[in-house]
């Protein structure tokens, strides 16, 4: 007559904290998670298939729409892949500007992550603080390429144009005020007992699990695995820059928080170096009007704010690629979510989703 049953609850796709259109099927025993299954694909637009019917330069705007929170990293990865396929040498000035853009993008993306992560945990104010600084970066991007979200900022072989006059000074100004602003976020979170309680030891991902699931980016490094594409397989002159790769030790939500916070500081360091020794010269290599890479295939990876972003292109020598495949860090990192959440509480799911920082546009492609 009496029986107990687990409650099955649908979190998403319309839910305030699943960051887009992620749907999670949770199996709950009271508040405890017995099992969970992410359901994805709500934002699938078939970008890979679309790319087979676009010329190489027409694909770049599509990459903007993959990880729309860090579109510049996608642009950088895609252009890098085609350049490698064609054997193009990008001028050093373009490479440095690309690094500045990519690292600003990393900060902007991490700021969005920090704001929403804190908001998910109930700390509302941090969100507004981070968006204040993100706004400055978006203004910089707008000055550079006219767009604030989907930049289409690079061209195969370099950049469309050099940066506008005074742009570097604005970047320097940002670098000057940013450390103080970061202290404001840290005052609200880093030693806040409630925040520590909500993140320390929550949603732990062991290094072995992280590697087994192919997790990359900050979640991998928070588990203590030293792998950063910028160091391991340098691209766009990253080998010339000095920066540390922050590592965590416990692989919990708090470590992922600390790793990203430190990455923002390191990004500032990289940008400063790039500005200090910005080479003069052209920003675009000699590129034929019709881009027809030789037949062959290429796999190019970049370190996007979310992790290892891969671009695999097969060319048959025509104007359009034969096959394009994107390795989406959000997709891969999401696989580790059930491992992280099993046995935790409902509130931990929110912390865990926030801490792996997925973007569904990237995940579903």
């Amino acid at each position, binding site marked *: 007559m009496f029986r107990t049953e687990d*409650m099955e*609850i649908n979190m998403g796709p319309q*839910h*305030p*904290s699943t960051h887009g259109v992620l749907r999670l099927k949770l199996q*709950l025993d009271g*508040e405890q998670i017995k099992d969970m299954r992410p359901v994805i694909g709500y934002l699938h637009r078939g970008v890979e298939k679309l790319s087979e019917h676009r010329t190489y330069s027409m694909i770049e705007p599509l990459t903007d729409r993959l990880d729309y929170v860090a579109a510049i990293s996608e642009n950088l990865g895609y252009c890098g892949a085609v350049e490698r396929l064609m054997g193009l040498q990008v001028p050093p000035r373009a490479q440095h500007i690309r690094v500045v853009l990519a690292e600003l993008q990393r900060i902007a993306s991490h700021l969005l992550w920090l704001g929403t992560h*804190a*908001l*998910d*945990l*109930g*700390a*509302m*104010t941090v*969100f*507004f*603080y981070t968006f*204040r600084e993100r706004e400055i970066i978006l203004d910089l991007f707008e000055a550079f390429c006219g767009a604030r979200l989907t930049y289409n900022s690079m061209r195969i072989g370099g950049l469309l144009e050099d940066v506008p006059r005074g742009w570097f000074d604005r970047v320097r100004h940002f670098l000057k005020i940013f450390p103080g602003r970061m202290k404001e976020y840290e005052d*609200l*979170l880093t030693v*806040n007992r*409630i*925040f520590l*309680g*909500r993140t320390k030891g929550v949603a732990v991902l062991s290094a072995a699990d992280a590697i087994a699931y192919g997790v990359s980016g900050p979640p991998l490094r928070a588990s203590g695995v030293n792998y950063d594409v910028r160091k391991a397989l340098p691209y766009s002159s990253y080998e010339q820059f000095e920066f540390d790769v922050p590592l965590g030790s416990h692989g919990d939500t708090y470590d992922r928080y600390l790793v990203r916070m430190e990455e923002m500081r390191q990004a500032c360091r990289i940008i400063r170096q790039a500005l200090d020794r910005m080479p003069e010269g052209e920003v675009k290599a000699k590129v034929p009007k019709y881009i027809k890479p030789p037949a062959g295939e290429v796999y190019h990876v970049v370190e996007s704010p979310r992790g290892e972003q891969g671009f695999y292109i097969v060319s048959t020598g025509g104007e359009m690629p034969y096959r394009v495949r994107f390795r989406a860090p959000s997709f891969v990192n999401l696989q580790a979510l059930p491992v992280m959440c099993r046995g935790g*509480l*409902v*509130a*931990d*799911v*929110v912390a865990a989703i926030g801490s792996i920082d997925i973007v569904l546009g990237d995940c579903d492609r």
Partner: protein
Amino acid sequence: MDQKQLVEQIVIPILQVLIAVAVVPLIILYLQLVERKVLGFMQVRLAPRRVGWHGLLQPVADAVKLLTKEDTIPAKADRFLFTLAPIVAVATALSALAVIPVAGTPFSLFGYEVKPWISDLNIGVVYLLAISSLGIYGILLGGWSSNSKYSMLGALRSTAQMISYEVPLGFALIGVMMLAGSASTVRIVEAQKSSGWWYILPQIIGFFCYFISAVAETNRVPFDLPEAESELVAGFHTEYSGMKFALFFLAEYTNMIVVSSIVTIAFFGGWLRPFPNVEALAWLENGWVPLMSLVLGAFAGWLAGNHLGGGLNPLMVGALLGALLGFGIAVADLGGLATMSVPLLSGAFWFTLKVSFFLFVYIWFRGTYPRYRYDQLMQLGWKWLIPLSVGNVIVTGLVMLLLGRT
């Protein structure tokens, strides 16, 4: 029962109840605006500014919106309980106002004596605790009758939370009742006057236990788990819309006001000025203290206005108008026109000031803290607050025994 008694004991309390029920929702509408403005200030944004001057009509717009929204009832909900729940929530919250004294001195109006409280129950504090426990029914019934999983989880959370925090809430007030020798809210304040200090001094632990538990009891940040929007969408009121939702909202804010009032009465001397027995500070009861405070308020408004880009702003204008009013009353007082009004005004001023401060603390919490997790919340309640508050009662009793006070 002659006519005077009839009016004083029946008609005036009924009028007072009507005033409380009519005025408190209005205060809450503007409390909401203040909350948004203060949060806006903390969060480097402007808060409502479109409806009316500096957003002053925003509460009206909100009220109209809530009243005209479609009032949906989910198909599988228990219609009766679904409708009953918000009524229970708001009725219990408003009932608590009955024993809140806003000033100490009764005054006369058209020859009838009017007391600045609705009722002076000899078990006022117990009544408050009982009423706030009943408030749980509103949330529990609302969450359960919606027949939605998120509402259900929210209702379960809030029931567990509110029942756990009832205990330290009660124990924290026992210390105060022991010191005052009474459970009547008016007597508690008067006892603080005769003992010469606010009970925050001997009962500081009791105060912290009470205030933390009270924030939890009212389901506010950082204990807003029942309506944790990032986890449970909106918790127990997920399925509510329109006026029913507005009633839950009203209940939450009324509870905030009630809790702030109880803190003020039990620990901060209600309508008393600071150090109520120090003669040197008697000037604090003068009519011009509220006046000067309002002038200071206007100055603060001017500073805040500079932050917003200069010009007049409502805080400044409101404070100046209040100062003018106070000035008028002070002049009337000097002229001997209304001698009774100054103690009343002074009492109401100190009471309002203290209550406003605690309401501000609520908003401050909201701007600062993340949310507790369910298990951590329970741990805080059972492992820290309950032992602390019980220990506080024991220590208070021992000290009273040693000092020979009974």
